């Protein structure tokens, strides 16, 4: 049951200030507004996608202070003061990140809807563990759903990105 149906006020507005993709942004939101809706509607950052809105599919994954977060389960007010990184922040000055480039080179995706969540999840993984095994990559991606690919091309793209960022491992 929604807040208003319970007779609770939904019109109290909260100020939200945060950093998104390195830029200081602010907005005024209802307490119930999700971070995903804030990013998509208030900041017009529609690269973050909503695939299930109950925290299972991972399409809406963004990084909040470096940690992957399901922006459909997080409220905008919870991100106050945080640094949020979205898919729009991965390419720098029009140059694809090495991960994006590798996913392109390896035909990693098809319809593209799950893509933002995968890229953010993998970005976090590679920050924390620069040299994972294929099994570790699959495990780390097992909370993101892709309905098109069967995952093999995604895993291949990640492994290629890892190999290209560790040139000394290539004999």
């Amino acid at each position, binding site marked *: *049951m*929604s*807040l*208003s*149906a319970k007779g609770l006020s*939904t019109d109290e507005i909260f100020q939200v200030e945060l950093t998104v993709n390195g830029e200081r942004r602010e907005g005024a939101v209802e307490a*119930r*507004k999700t971070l995903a809706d804030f990013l*998509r509607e208030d900041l*017009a*950052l*529609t*690269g*973050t*996608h*909503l*695939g*299930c*809105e*109950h925290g*299972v*599919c991972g*399409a809406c994954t963004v990084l909040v202070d470096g940690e992957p977060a399901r922006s459909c389960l997080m409220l905008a007010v919870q991100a106050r003061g945080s640094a949020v990184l*979205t*898919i*729009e922040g*991965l*390419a720098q000055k029009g140059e*694809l990140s090495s991960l*994006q480039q590798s*996913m*392109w*080179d390896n*035909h990693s*995706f*098809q*319809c*593209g*809807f*799950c*893509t*933002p969540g995968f*890229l953010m999840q993998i970005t976090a993984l590679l920050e924390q563990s620069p040299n994972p095994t294929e099994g570790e*990559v*699959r*495990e780390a*991606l*097992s*909370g*993101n*759903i*892709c*309905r*098109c*690919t*069967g*995952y*093999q*091309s*995604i895993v291949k793209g990640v492994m290629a990105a890892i190999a290209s960022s560790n040139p000394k491992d290539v004999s």
Partner: protein
Amino acid sequence: MSDSKSGVFPVAGRFTGSPVRRSEDPRLLTGRGMYVDDIRLPGMLHAAFVRSPMAHAVVLRVDTKAARSAPGVRAVFDGQEMAQLAKAGGGPLGDMGGEGVESPIFTVLATDRVRMMGDPVALVVADSRYLAEDACELIQVEYQELPAVTSAEQALDPRSTPIFANLGSNVLQGPTTERFGDVEAVFASADRVVTASLTQHRHQNVPMEGRGIVASFDPATGELRVNASTQGVHGVREALAAQLDIPLEKVHVRAGDIGGSFGLKFGVSREEVAVAAASLKLGLPVRWIEDRNENLTVSGQAREESFEVEAAITKDGDILGLKVKMVIDAGAYPGVAPMLVGTIRQMIPGPYRMEALSFTATVAITNKASYVAYRGPWASETWVRERLIDLISAELGRDPMQIRLRNVAVRGEPPLRMVTGPSLAGITAQESLQRAAALIDLDSFRERQELARQEGRYLGVGFGTFIEPAPGPRDPDETPSEEEMEQLRMRLELDGTVTVFTSQMPHGQSHQTTLAQVAADHFGIPFSQVKVVVGDTDMVPMGFGTGGSRSATMAGGATLHAARALRAKVLEVAAQLIDTGPETLNIIGGMVAAEKASTRSITLVEVAAAAAAGDRLPPGIDRELEVNFAFDGGAGGWSGGTHCAVVEVDVETGLVRVERYLVVEDCGEMINPAIVEGQVRGGVAQGIGAVLLERSAYGEDGQFLSGSLMDYLLPTATDVPQIEIEHLETVRLDADVNFRGVGEGGMIVAPPTLGNAIADALAPFGVRITEQHLPPARLLELIGTMDA
């Protein structure tokens, strides 16, 4: 690569056949795709639906008063109000299927009756989605519950409550019987008859992006502009014009990036019609984006069929003929089930030589979600046939591979046709079976299996083989209808680039890449200089869109021929400009150049400019550097192949581990091998999901039990193994176009492949597998360690 060797046309293969990187990816990898949920229009309103909490009930009263005065609400429509604005009819494919099938009568929003859980009862339009959903909760609906019809068996009981009053019963079609060959004689001559009851559970598409629409009616011009998530923009346009009763030319439909579909998004749904009707009434843009619970509960479900099969066989394992009785549970509202009867019937012999078939079909209506197309919608024929062959093999104590090879049709040898009629030209089933058996090394697997069993480990191997009409070999005496032709437009732009306009509506299939590859090679221009325009009824030719694995042959072929025709036109103009014969000219890398080095070359920009201006050209020459091409599919052909799974079943937990998954695939000439392999692997993953995880589940009262992704389980990166793919060499049926569709095969044949492997693993327990959904709990029941 030199073009001169081919004499007339450039040699294909610079781009065609290479894993060219996708032109779609730069936008999709950077968050700059444009899906329907990303559309923002000034003044746009947001829609939400009130839906039935019951599977079957009479609607006594809908009270919308409180909702109408709720914050931010612009309009509320109940079923009666909506009935004034829009006609119902048309399901996901726009038509209640089938000849001689009476159409059920219903409304866009429910008026007197709800027929499935989630049936839309009222529509709220508000300033935000949040406010629209708030207001939905203020709408009071009084229902009088009716007995729910939740299985085909109940539906076929004459005492069941008719779900549609005008039909009088819950039998939509049948039973109808068709016979091919001398069924009685074949059964009389059989050494034995093997029988089986095989079932196919409900699957669903679950694209990562659900349905959605932004409809914007401008009262000043009378034009309705729509952005849709669809597999074909023209179908949306035609359905909206008809159901809203507005002139076709006033409706404009566009689609951007589509987040998957797998058959779901054809035509318009009732919700999409309601949203467009609301925009028409309000004169403002209205958006509806389906949430996941709506998607799972009401967008549609697929493939719930049960089969009674009798197979007439010889003692040596020849399959002489089949008697099949099929019942489809078509759910509540019009869908594609009646249309599929003919396809399932036609395809059930597959690539095998059987001489006779009797096929009886019944389509039942139940209080469940409507039956939609899902990747290989007729696939239960392959499930039934390939599982049956393993059951026959078990009865004869023979290896299933031997039985398959014994019965499979061999290319060039009689019979040249399936018993149901279609030609078997170009078939490579025997080759794919033999290759798969060799790659898996069946003999050494059997040794390993035996040793493992002695250790209490249960390994199994399963094969499945299939053919897929993509689009199927064409009979020379058959002329395709206009709707079956693939229209394509191609033109040379003033900047020297080429634009392709296609009715294909890619939603993951990468046509903006593949069609550009073909156009680039056959026109003679770099890949990067070709733009492929999709998804705009004002710009793209007529056509039903993307589906049925038609695109590679039909759109690939139309592109090939259009590129050649455009090239010929360009050479005619260029020949005038440089005063030589067109036969001496080639287009290479964007330049028109003569074979003789002494003749000067000319850029495509110069040709385009001269054609536009006309003053340097003699009168009578065709200066319009644009072609419209309609392709009939050429000789067509089958896609097909054999899949093989090696599994280990943990008989303590019921968990299945897929140790190896192998695909031997024949889809003719590949335009882009990486894209082909992505289609195959994606289909296999859905097949694995269908067997081990996915099921659209209903309670006895018709309550839908799998309305979240925590209940409807999709395979993840840890569930899907590496999938090895080997491509067979192309059998060329057509002089020019031998690309064949590959979109559906993986999903068609993976379920029986896996089912056969699991059955093989559990053979020591005497387990007989006749159902397709085999999650751990069910396997433990079958093994006997758990009570059913």
